[in-house]
C-alpha cells in the first residue's frame, strides 16, 4: 500500500513522456469531455443521468466537429499560402 502510494505521488513530481506526434493530439479528448460536462452541469435545470449524458454527448460531438472543421480550414489556408501562392508567383516555396 505504501509503495503504491509512493509510486503514485512520485508521478506528480516528474513529467510524463509524451512525444510531439499526431497521437499526442488525443490528449484533447479528455479536456473536451471535462469542458462539456462542467458547462452542461451549470446549464441544465435538473441533473438526470440519461438527459445529462445525452446533452453532454451532443456538446462533445459539436466541439469535436467544430475543431475538425477549423483544422481543415486552417490546413487549407496554410496549403494555399505555402504551395499555391509561390507557384502562381513563379518562385520557389518558402
Amino acid at each position: 500500500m505504501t509503495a503504491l502510494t509512493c509510486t503514485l505521488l512520485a508521478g506528480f513530481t516528474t513529467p510524463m513522456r509524451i512525444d510531439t506526434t499526431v497521437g499526442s493530439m488525443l490528449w484533447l479528448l479528455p479536456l473536451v469531455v471535462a469542458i462539456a460536462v462542467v458547462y452542461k452541469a451549470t446549464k441544465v435545470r435538473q441533473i438526470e443521468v440519461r438527459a445529462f449524458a445525452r446533452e453532454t454527448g451532443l456538446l462533445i460531438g459539436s466541439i469535436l466537429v467544430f475543431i475538425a472543421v477549423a483544422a481543415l480550414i486552417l490546413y487549407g489556408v496554410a496549403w494555399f499560402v505555402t504551395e499555391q501562392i509561390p507557384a502562381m508567383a513563379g518562385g520557389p516555396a518558402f
Partner: protein
Amino acid sequence: MARTPKDHDTFFLGAVGLLAWAVPGGGHFLINERKRSIVIFVTVVLTFLVGLYVGSVGVIDPVNAKPWYAAQLMNSPAVFFLGQISISGQFPVYGRAGEIGQIYTSIAGLLNLLCIVNAVYMAHVRSLDEAHT
C-alpha cells in the same frame, strides 16, 4: 446594528462564492444542488489532477508563467501552496507534457471560475424568488 435582508444576502452570496472557490462544487453544495456539486467536484478535480500528473507539480509556476498561474489559482486557494512548493524549482517541467499539464490545470481553474459565478448567480436568483414569494 441589526443586519438587513440585503446585508444577509450579500454575506450569503460571498460565502457561496468563497466556498465554491475553496472546494470545486462547494458553492452548489451550499445551495442544496448536491448532484450538480458532485459532478463539478469530480470533473474539476480530476482535470486538475490529470494536469499535475502529466506535467508534474512544476506546471504551477508563479514566477515564470503568471497568466497560467492566475488561471490555475481559480481551482482553489490550495494551488497557492502548491505554487510555493514548486517555486523551489526542484520539479522539472519540459516538452509536450509540460504544455498539456499547464493547459489541463489552467482549464480546470477556468471551469471552476465558471462554476463560482454560476453558484453565486443561482443563489442570487433563489434569494430574489424567496423575496417575491
